[in-house]
């Protein structure tokens, strides 16, 4: 299988980037998309060129480290997958594939396809935790949590923090990411004591980081590898309004 890659190359955060074209032969349909990039990088080394910097780690869709725009879509042509789960069988022999980094002011490019997503860590830092210290827990079954509540919390706790929601949003909003974490903890009894503080401080940090507002286009939930629903943003907003009103 042979494809033409058009890939964003950028030396460093302050350098100007450009799209470069690479013809790549010798690919197979069973290869993952990232393995195709590995293959291209080996060819570049042998031609004495610098490799394309791109992110990955687990390569099984759970660590959230990978993520690029492929032909204009976050994580490629399919709904609800990560870049590492995309395989070359999704393309045709002879295709041209355009690969770009996440595009959002709050995710500055570090090099080529790698962006800085530390803004997510700083949102987490503002309250995505239960303050109790190690060693202070009561017997686990002393806290009863109905199955529906636990399942709903798990649906949002599943967020892998890849940033596709931000990248695909025309406002570069981090609302889906932030809502997922807030709704996970605030819907559980363990999260209740700090619920108001959590929603207020995390959403404040989200805005301080320069992420845009949500205008409910629904683009994020299409790309989210965990299929987290946009309803969660409405829920977060309701929690936030309530917390503001009470404070």
């Amino acid at each position: 299988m042979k494809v033409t890659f058009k890939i964003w190359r950028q030396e460093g955060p302050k350098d100007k980037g450009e799209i470069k074209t690479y013809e790549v032969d010798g690919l197979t349909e069973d290869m993952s998309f990232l393995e195709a990039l590995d293959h291209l990088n080996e060819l570049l080394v042998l031609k004495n060129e610098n490799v394309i910097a791109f992110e990955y780690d687990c390569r099984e869709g759970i660590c959230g480290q990978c993520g690029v725009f492929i032909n204009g879509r976050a994580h490629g042509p399919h709904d609800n997958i990560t870049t590492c789960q995309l395989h070359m069988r999704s393309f045709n022999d002879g295709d041209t594939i355009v690969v770009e980094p996440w595009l959002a002011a709050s995710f500055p490019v570090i090099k080529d396809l790698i962006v800085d997503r530390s803004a997510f860590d700083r949102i987490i830092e503002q309250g995505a935790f239960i303050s109790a210290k190690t060693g202070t827990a009561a017997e686990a079954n002393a806290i009863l949590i109905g199955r529906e509540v636990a399942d709903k919390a798990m649906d949002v706790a599943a967020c892998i923090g890849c940033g596709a929601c931000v990248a695909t949003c025309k406002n570069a909003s981090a609302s889906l990411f932030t809502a997922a974490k807030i709704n996970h903890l605030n819907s559980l009894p363990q999260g209740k004591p700090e619920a108001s503080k959590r929603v207020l401080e995390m959403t404040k940090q989200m805005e301080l980081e320069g992420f845009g507002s949500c205008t409910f286009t629904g683009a994020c939930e299409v790309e989210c590898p965990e299929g987290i629903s946009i309803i969660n943003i409405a829920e977060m907003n309701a929690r936030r309004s309530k917390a503001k009103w009470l404070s």
Partner: protein
Amino acid sequence: MKLDSKIPKGKLEDKWRNYQVNSQLINPANKKKLSIIVVGSGLSGAGAASTLAELGYDVKCFCYQDSARRAHSVAAQGGINAAKNYQHDGDSVYRMFYDTLKGGDYRSREANTYRLAELSAPLIDHFVQQGVPFAREYGGTLVNRSFGGVQVQRTFYARGQTGQQLLLAAYSQLYKMVRAKKVEMFPRSEMLDLVVIDGKAKGIIVRDLVNGDLKRFAADAVVLATGGYSRVFRLSTLAIGCNGSAIWKAHKKGALFAAPSFTQIHPTALPQSSETQSKLTLMSESLRNDGRIWVPKQKRDTRRANEIPEDERDYYLERRYPSFGNLAPRDIASRAAKERIDAGFGVGKLKNAVYLDFKFAIERFGLKTIKDRYGNLFTMYKKITGVDAYKEPMKISPAAHFSMGGLWVDYELMTTIQGLYAIGECNFSDHGANRLGANSLLQASIDGYFILPNTINNYLASEIQTDHPNTDHPKFEKAEKETKKHIERILAINGTKTVDHFHRNLGKIMWQECAMSRNKLGLERAIEQIKEIKNQFWSDVKITGHEKEMNTELEKALRLADFIELSILMCTDALQREESCGAHFREEFQTEDGEALRKDNEYSYVSAWQYDNGSFKLHKETLEFEFVKPSVRNYK
């Protein structure tokens, strides 16, 4: 060298309490003056960093990923064991201890294994408190399922994403302490050397992966929480960045390496489909609760799975191990698969797989129940293979998965270098020669949250009086200079082959000779071949770009250089141990029906290897079985 495991006196159930009663304490005012470096931010690293910070220590935590949340603990699927006996099925701390010791084929310490079981129940309490959404019954209580090598239900889980949920809880707790300014976090930072001053670990040399700068960090103690090294096989279930460099550097600075060849090969990963593949995706062991494993009775059968009638299927695990069946421990299940595949009964394009079939479970429990239990795993299977496993069986194959071996540690989790600790998968302690499923999240968490924060005081208490280390010390100067030279040397080779080329060759040799089944000739040959790879690597590798920038090829090359050396030690260890135990199966030592033949009279010890200028010297820590009499492991 006399290896002192520092096992406390007393009855098995009193040892940990006795240890804590006699351990030295440090008052809160003094804790503030002590600093600790934690390398790695997975379950053990993040758990340790946050808990040590809560106790008042000044903590610096490093990881190579862009965020602590990516650490590979995130990928553990099936669950975490705890002796809660919530299912009222006869479980207890003692039974969990016994299962783990037996599962490890009696090659771990009784006292460590008992402590693992003892601290499992409070760990579940801890994670529930931290908001982990474990699976629940309608009435609100916690649910359990079974895992391999066990006849009770003691595994807690959060769908097929248990590792992710535990890691995110640990990561959140870590960032709580970042916010409190008690932890300073250094992502995209890789430890390249350990600094030892007067025999004590006092700091590390780190490469900033964004700009390539080498940096020095000093502390009163160093904790390695850097995970497993099964990427030595290249194809494994591990993340691509997982590496053995930190522990290898520590080994070269004097830390003994224990049981390096004890590697778990997981029976249920997705099979390799091509030469260029970079990764073998794991399918959780929990699937074996309801899935049945089989191969066709006819060799090289070309029919589709669903076309093969029931009486032409060989459910070989149920046939060979009727009492444990599909839930036989991992080493046994993997070897049994290899046996069938090697005999010509493998399925799939490359004939390297076996079937994992849910037909019966779907008939019995209904599609909805199976979807509830494993939905995300079936979805993942479909994303990767394009096949709907609700309609036809999954194809699975064994893959390198977990390192039981690692840096030798005593009961306090301290290595043979004073002030250097190893926690989680990077140490050798609790799993013996084979780890039971759902015990790795457990061990990582317990090491980080409960054990280390209680044992590190015992060392640091004596460090309050000594001078705090300074990065101007000549030992820092020297370590940084050597690291710089090492990097320059590797870049200067400018040969003709890529890093991946050498890694593929290394992986093939290791998979062939030092994985599921080993023999003397093969291991001797492997050592020679790896030495040759080492020579070729150091004369012909090509890396483009330079050291003062983000350079992913350079990162890979530095990790591979260490893997090559480590793999020689792994083969040396496998060659020296002339018995079969757990995952270490020497073909020369097996029973008539192909089971592992353990030799307790000669090999009931932990092999701890000392680095000596390129060769390795063996030290033995004899395993004393005071409470359980080792027996032949039987799952039939």
